[in-house]
Each structure stands twice: as C-alpha cells, then as structure tokens.
C-alpha cells in the first residue's frame, strides 16, 4: 500500500479580524406601521427593536459581503491572496447555483480559494466558524473567510404583524487563521428536525413552477414555541459550551447571542445567571434580526464602540430555523 502524505495544520485556530456592513437605509418602526396594525410601543416591548437596516437594490448579498470582508481582512492584517477558503452562510441569496461564495471570493481579490455556501439559518455563523477551525487545524486552509449575510427584507411579509418588524439586512465577516494557543473552544451544536416547522419559509420555490399564483415566500415562525426553545433549551447549550471550553461565568467577558429578539436575550441572560460584569450584545435594537449576520455584526460593534476589547473571552451562540444551533467560546480579535 502506498503511503499518503498527511496534511499539516496549525495547532489551533483563532478569529483574527472582524468586519461588518449595515445598509445605508435605516428603517424606523413608523415605516413598519404603514403595513401592519400595531404600535411602536408594542414592537419595542415584544422585540426591543427600534430600527433596522434595509438594503437598496445595489446593496446585494455579494456587495454587502465584499464590504464586510474587506474590513475583516484589514482588521486581521492579512492580504486577500492568503485566504484559502471562503464560507458564506445565507438563506437570502436567491440563486441556488452557483454558490455566492465564489463571486465574493473573486471580488475581494482572494484568487482561487475553496468557496462554498452553507445553510444553517441563524446558527450559520457558528457552523461556518466550526468548519473554518477544522480546516485550519486539519491543514486544508491557512486563512478562512467566514461570512454571515442576509437580505431578510426580501423574505419579510410586511402584512404579518408578528414578523414584519423583526428582520433586517447586513453582512458580518471574520478571518479565521492559525493560532499557537486555543482561541476557539469546542462547538456544542446540533439540530432538532422534529421542530422543522417552527421557523420556516412559507412556500417552496417550486410552487412557482406550475403557473400557480403564490404570494412570494417569507419567513414565518411560531413565536411562543421559538421563544421557549430559544430561551430555555439554548441556555442549556450555552452552558454546555462554557463547560466544554472550561470557562466559568466569572471568567467570561462578553456574551454574544444571536440577535433574534431583545426579550430572548434578556431571558437567556437571566436563565444563564450571567454575572453583572459580562457585557451583553444588544445590537438587535438598531439592527433587527439579521440571521447568520447577527453575531459577527454584534461582535464588530462591541469592539468598535469599546464595549469589548481584543483578547476578551466571549460566548457566542446562534440558533434558528431547522431547528439548528451552535455555541462556542472564542477569544475576540
């Protein structure tokens, strides 16, 4: 039997840089109230959301990703040519093939890296980060660009008073690279397919096939069921991620949960009994729920505003349609 030479990876991986892009147009609740019977007070009390960003025609999934990636690459201090793989998590890029990752890789000047899209809803960033870590440690890429990007305004039913106010658009990106010390903990992740109807696209694309007039697809959810799962089941997963990384709540500096809804964030913090000193990301107030983009966007804002600093220990957890989830502890770039 011939001997196959094994690949050589780095001992560990770390997030080296982060970048975000929020569309120019800021949409206050007043605009949402033009199409649903509700109130600013109701929206704020149920979600904590005051404004969100909606993309223009020019702010495509690729364009937003390229902007966020450029910032992440600069923040990491590498050149685009050093990127060995590009992973894009999105549910709102409307071409199934080719993957949008290849176009983004080309436009950021990354040359010919491996490039592919993943579908893991609001847990997409954690899924991408976990893949990137594996690739770096295994040796198939030295630097990986992980992007979470959404134009959820395209998948929002503006007449649905339960969801019309929830979603926003944006892109968040990180560069993951080699590290001499552990800087991304074990991922606690999984799926619960028995709850696949809890958050879903209203109609499948192929319903447009047979000339059947269908309302354009939108994302819908069972609010109470999602809330219960997100707060109480995901708090357990978050705790498991802390335990797996050997980090106690006292050691933790920052908590960056998926920015789904302020009420979920508040209840998770309470359920997890996080100490007062832990900085909690609350980007949802002005960014809305941007699915896979929400964690890197929140991470970038915490660092940019000085609420968190490089070297801080952060617990990140994403959860959403699938249902799927991924949680891990990282050192902030």
């Amino acid at each position, binding site marked *: 039997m011939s001997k196959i030479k094994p690949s050589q990876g780095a001992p560990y991986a770390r997030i080296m840089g982060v970048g975000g892009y929020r569309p120019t147009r800021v949409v206050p609740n007043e605009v949402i109230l033009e199409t649903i019977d509700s109130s600013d007070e109701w929206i704020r*009390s*149920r979600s904590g959301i005051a404004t969100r960003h909606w993309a223009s025609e020019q702010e495509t999934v690729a364009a937003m990703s390229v902007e966020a990636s450029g910032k992440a690459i600069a923040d990491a201090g590498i050149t685009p040519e050093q990127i060995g793989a590009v992973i894009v998590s999105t549910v709102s890029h409307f071409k199934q093939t080719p993957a949008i990752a290849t176009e983004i890789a080309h436009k950021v000047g990354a040359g010919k890296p491996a490039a592919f899209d993943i579908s893991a809803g609001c847990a997409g960033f954690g899924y991408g980060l976990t893949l990137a870590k594996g690739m770096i440690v295994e040796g198939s890429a030295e630097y990986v660009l992980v992007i979470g990007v959404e134009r959820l305004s395209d998948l929002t039913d503006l007449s649905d008073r339960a969801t019309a106010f929830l979603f926003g658009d944006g892109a968040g990106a990180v560069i993951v690279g080699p590290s001499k010390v552990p800087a991304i903990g074990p991922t606690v992740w999984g799926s619960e397919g028995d709850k696949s109807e809890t958050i879903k696209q209203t109609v499948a694309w192929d319903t447009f096939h047979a000339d059947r007039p269908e309302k354009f697809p939108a994302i819908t959810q*069972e*609010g*109470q*069921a999602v*809330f*219960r799962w997100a*707060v*109480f089941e995901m708090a357990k997963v978050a705790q498991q991620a802390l335990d797996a990384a050997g980090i106690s709540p006292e050691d933790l500096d920052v908590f960056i949960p998926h920015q789904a809804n302020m*009420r979920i964030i508040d*209840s998770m913090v309470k359920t997890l009994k996080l100490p007062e000193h832990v900085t909690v990301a609350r980007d949802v107030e002005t960014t809305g729920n941007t699915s896979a983009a929400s964690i890197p966007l929140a991470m970038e804002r915490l660092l940019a505003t000085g609420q968190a600093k490089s070297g801080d220990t952060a617990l990140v957890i994403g959860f959403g349609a699938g249902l799927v989830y991924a949680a891990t502890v990282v050192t902030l770039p």
Partner: protein
Amino acid sequence: MAATQKEILDGLAEIVNEIAGIPVEDVELEKSFTDDLDVDSLSMVEVVVAAEERFDVKIPDEDVKNLKTVGDATEYILKHQG
C-alpha cells in the same frame, strides 16, 4: 404530594409577580393573563416554564394558548401535575 388548588393559585401568583411585577393579590382565578394582568405572550411562556418546574407538570406549546385565565392554568396544573 400533589398541590391543592389554593397552593397552585398562590404559586402562580408568586410566579406572575416575579416575571411581570403584578402584585400577588391581583392574581385571582377569574383574571385573564393578557387582558387583566398584562402578561404578554412571551411572558406567558416564562410563566408556563416556571410553573412546569414548580408543580412538576408538562405544559406543551399547543396547550399554552388555551390557558387564558389564571383559573384555566390552575385547573390544568391540578389535572396534570405529577
């Protein structure tokens, strides 16, 4: 030992007080969670989960929407408690 109706009502009053800040004496059997006690749909989930733990009972999502009054919840717990 199974809780009595009075114990369940008192327990629910404490839970609603803690979660929604409603005075315990306002939590009465005929009161509607949403209309009278200002417990919204998300706080209701927190009330339900706290009640599950306290009274060793499972209240599935599909049953939560039927618990309109404090009396509904008390009856449900009385019937299903472990």
